[in-house]
């Protein structure tokens, strides 16, 4: 494998995925907030709620199209840049992507057209149901994507088939109800809701600070404060912790987040802050809090948390076992009926992925030297300092958002959102959820390295047979295109916010808010 092709493919995937995920969280959250706002309109029949729904709907639309446009790249990018990955796990990984299209994308994309163009063609209740369809569709789409991603972190319900040289599904229910996927789904959509709530709070605060559209801004803020408080609690409480004890790689992820080099006696201490050192394999200046890690990590006082050194030893043993399995696969290639090789394969198939880590150093893993085995085992440690600091950043943000929305509640009841320092804070808060969310993805994906699929397929083996020139062409192309679109999108958002919620097309603006024909 040409490592430059691998690294460039990773760079492009990271760029396009992180760019795509600038738009997704707002879609996830704002769609449900539109449902809440429109429900209030349907129940109270007060036209101001129609104006509120339509206004946030417009901002939703500007954001939504870029999510759709950049999502297209993601659907194709596994095939274009990760062809061997697509072959190797497509039997399992392709299914959630296809179901996402059938069950979720069709719903959200078909309904979104009626949501924007159907205001005058539908009854109030019908239109609300359409908006609900958009919200359900976008959130279901997140469910299927996280089932796919959860499988990469914890590949359940599948086994290697030497006849087809790939992983094949053995238990589809296990893939669906993968606990890692479930935890990730709740965590990710809740983060999206926090993002949208913060956005609505911030934009409304701008209006209140300038004394414009205060009726609309106060009501929007109320909805956002309630939705945001519930969601920020959900992000932290139902966070990503569960499932960290399931596989060796997940254990490694937790150990590196905590920069825990040695296995400690249960219950383990948590390192609040320190300076992890990859070279010396230790954490300098660590400030520790006893017991806490054991309780968070295992939900018990007796559960042990395995340290990095011990996990590397486990990897070493699995590489050696995998080399035997790999040898059996090569024998089966020559003779499908070789019963002895078949039996050896069955005994060692769980570890074949580990043997493939050696391909970075030697073309045929069976020829690996002791030195190379040690190197491959050490490769299973992800970038500890990045993990350590990103996690602390994300956790701090999580608690900050709970405090922020609790404060919003207090300001709502105490001063009807007229506390100016709080309004200024709300504006400053707008970009923070995006930082936390992108940080969360980097943490999840860096933490899985060196694997594309935990214990199954190393990332460097997944790439396509492309040239460096081809990948640079598309990286430059995507960067230029995406960069231009980002500038245009932000300008349009700002222009739309400046213009405000009052529509000059309204049939009788002088009479306040015109009732619909249905009223």
């Amino acid at each position, binding site marked *: 494998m040409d490592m430059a092709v691998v690294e460039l493919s990773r760079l492009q995937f990271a760029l396009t995925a992180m760019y795509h995920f600038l738009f997704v969280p707002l879609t996830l959250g704002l769609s449900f907030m539109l449902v809440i706002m429109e429900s209030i309109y349907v129940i109270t029949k007060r036209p101001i709620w129609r104006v509120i729904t339509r206004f946030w709907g417009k901002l939703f639309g500007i954001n939504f199209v*870029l999510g759709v446009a950049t999502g297209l790249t993601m659907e194709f990018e596994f095939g*274009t840049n990760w062809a061997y990955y697509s072959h190797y796990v497509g039997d399992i990984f392709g299914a959630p992507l296809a179901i996402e299209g059938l069950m979720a994308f069709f719903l959200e*994309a078909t309904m979104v057209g009626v949501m924007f163009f159907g205001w005058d063609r539908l009854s109030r209740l019908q239109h609300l149901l359409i908006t609900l369809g958009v919200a359900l569709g976008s959130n279901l789409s997140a469910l299927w994507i996280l089932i796919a991603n959860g499988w990469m972190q914890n590949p359940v319900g599948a086994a290697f088939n030497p006849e087809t040289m790939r992983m094949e*599904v053995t238990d589809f229910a296990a893939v669906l109800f993968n606990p890692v996927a479930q935890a990730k789904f709740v965590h990710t959509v809740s983060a999206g809701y926090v993002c949208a709530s913060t956005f609505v709070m911030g934009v409304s605060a701008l209006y209140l600070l300038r004394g414009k559209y205060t009726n609309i801004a106060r009501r929007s803020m109320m909805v956002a404060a309630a939705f945001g408080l519930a969601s920020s609690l959900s992000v932290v409480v139902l966070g990503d912790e569960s499932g960290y004890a399931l596989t060796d790689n997940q254990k490694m992820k937790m150990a590196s987040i905590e920069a825990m080099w040695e296995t400690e006696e249960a219950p383990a201490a948590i390192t609040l802050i320190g300076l992890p050192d990859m070279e010396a394999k230790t954490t300098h200046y660590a400030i520790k809090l006893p017991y806490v890690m054991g309780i968070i990590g295992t939900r018990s006082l007796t559960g042990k948390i395995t340290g990095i050194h011990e996990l590397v030893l486990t990897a070493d043993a699995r590489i050696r076992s995998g080399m035997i399995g790999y040898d059996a696969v090569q024998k089966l290639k020559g003779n499908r009926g070789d019963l002895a090789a078949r039996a050896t394969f069955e005994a060692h198939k769980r570890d074949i992925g580990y043997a493939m880590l050696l391909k970075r150093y030697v073309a045929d893993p069976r020829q690996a030297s002791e030195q190379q085995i040690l190197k491959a085992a050490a490769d299973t440690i992800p970038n500890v300092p990045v993990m350590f600091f990103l996690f602390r950043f994300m956790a701090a943000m999580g608690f900050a958002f709970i405090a922020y929305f609790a404060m919003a509640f207090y300001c709502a009841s105490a001063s009807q959102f007229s506390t100016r320092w709080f309004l200024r804070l709300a504006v400053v808060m707008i970009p923070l959820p995006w930082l936390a969310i992108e940080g969360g993805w980097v943490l999840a994906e860096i933490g899985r390295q060196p694997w594309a699929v935990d214990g199954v397929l190393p990332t460097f083996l997944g790439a396509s047979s492309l040239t460096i020139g081809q990948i640079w062409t598309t990286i430059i192309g*995507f960067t230029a295109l995406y960069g231009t679109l980002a500038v245009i999108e932000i300008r349009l958002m700002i*222009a739309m916010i400046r213009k405000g919620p009052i529509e000059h*097309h309204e049939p009788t603006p002088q009479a306040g808010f015109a009732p619909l024909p249905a009223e």
Partner: protein
Amino acid sequence: MHIPLDYETLRLIWWALLGVLLIGFALTDGYDLGVASLLPFVARDDEERRLTINTIAPHWEGHQVWLILGGGAIFAAWPFVYAVSFSGFYLAMFLVLASLILRPVAFKYRSKHSDPAWRARWDWALFVGGFVPALVFGVAVGNVLIGAPFSFDSDLRMTYEGSLLGLFTPFTLLTGLLSVTMLVTHGAGWLALKVEEGAVLRRARRIGSAAAIASVVLFALGGVMVAKAGMGMRLMGVVDASGPSNPLMSASAAASGAWLDNYAAHSWMVLAPALGLIGPMLALLGISTRRAWVQFAGSSLAILGTVATVGCSMFPFILPSSIDPKSSLTVWNASSSHLTLFIMLVVTIIFLPIVLAYTAWVMKVLSGRITLADVRTSPDFY
């Protein structure tokens, strides 16, 4: 788990479903691409452009999902095809993606400012977002017919030995043009259904007629080229239709004229190329008799017939290799596992009818012709 359908049957069903998805995409998003390609030619001033754009504005998002679903379903049911074609046609895929990314943004952003320069730029983006994908999809199909330069090693890692420019040959340019004329005919058919009588409709009829005639000529010419060049491949040796999905375990070889084999063996398949020829003529008839539904049905049949012709000619091949025939992907060696095919079939049987039902309902809610008066008054129009 007991699977009530055997592997061979499921592979056949998924081959047919692959066709359904491609046809679904070409029938629905096909007219969006066609209308976008027509935009600079049928609409001269801003109001005409807005009229044209708003015939497809509420629909294209849902239609594009056929393409996304196509990608996902090929990934799930034909992972080899997904991996080989998408990475092999790498830069062509990028061209399609980049132009398709322009499209949603152009729809949404075009009318947010009244500045004519701003709008003209987005109109160009829309044109590119319609024309380029239409052309490249056709070129890709042409390349599938002649085979792509790829081979597998014993780990089934694929190596591709072609380039972007290598994709463009006289034959593939012809299939590319056919794709454009067919989708332009279809787009003109949609405009005939959706816009009021006027300048836009008159121009759409004129260009639609020319495109329909060109479609007939190009389709016939394409058939002649396939026959003259003797394109085709045949399976060799014993074929295990329920065997493992491993191209290296089966054998095939180039065989002159083999893409015509199936029509001799199953004469009913001739229906597909017949539709490919009759469809555009029917569209032409619809235009000259001012029957919009006949015109739209004609362009739809043309698309159906053309996609089905490619499938019927090549069966059981899906993506032949031009440099290493034994690496060729067929219905019998490139699918996902028996269990995955079955699960995906169950999911499709449940959800596809639901999708079709609400798509039809949405079409009904948004039905009716669009007029210049609507464009001037509706606050929701782009």
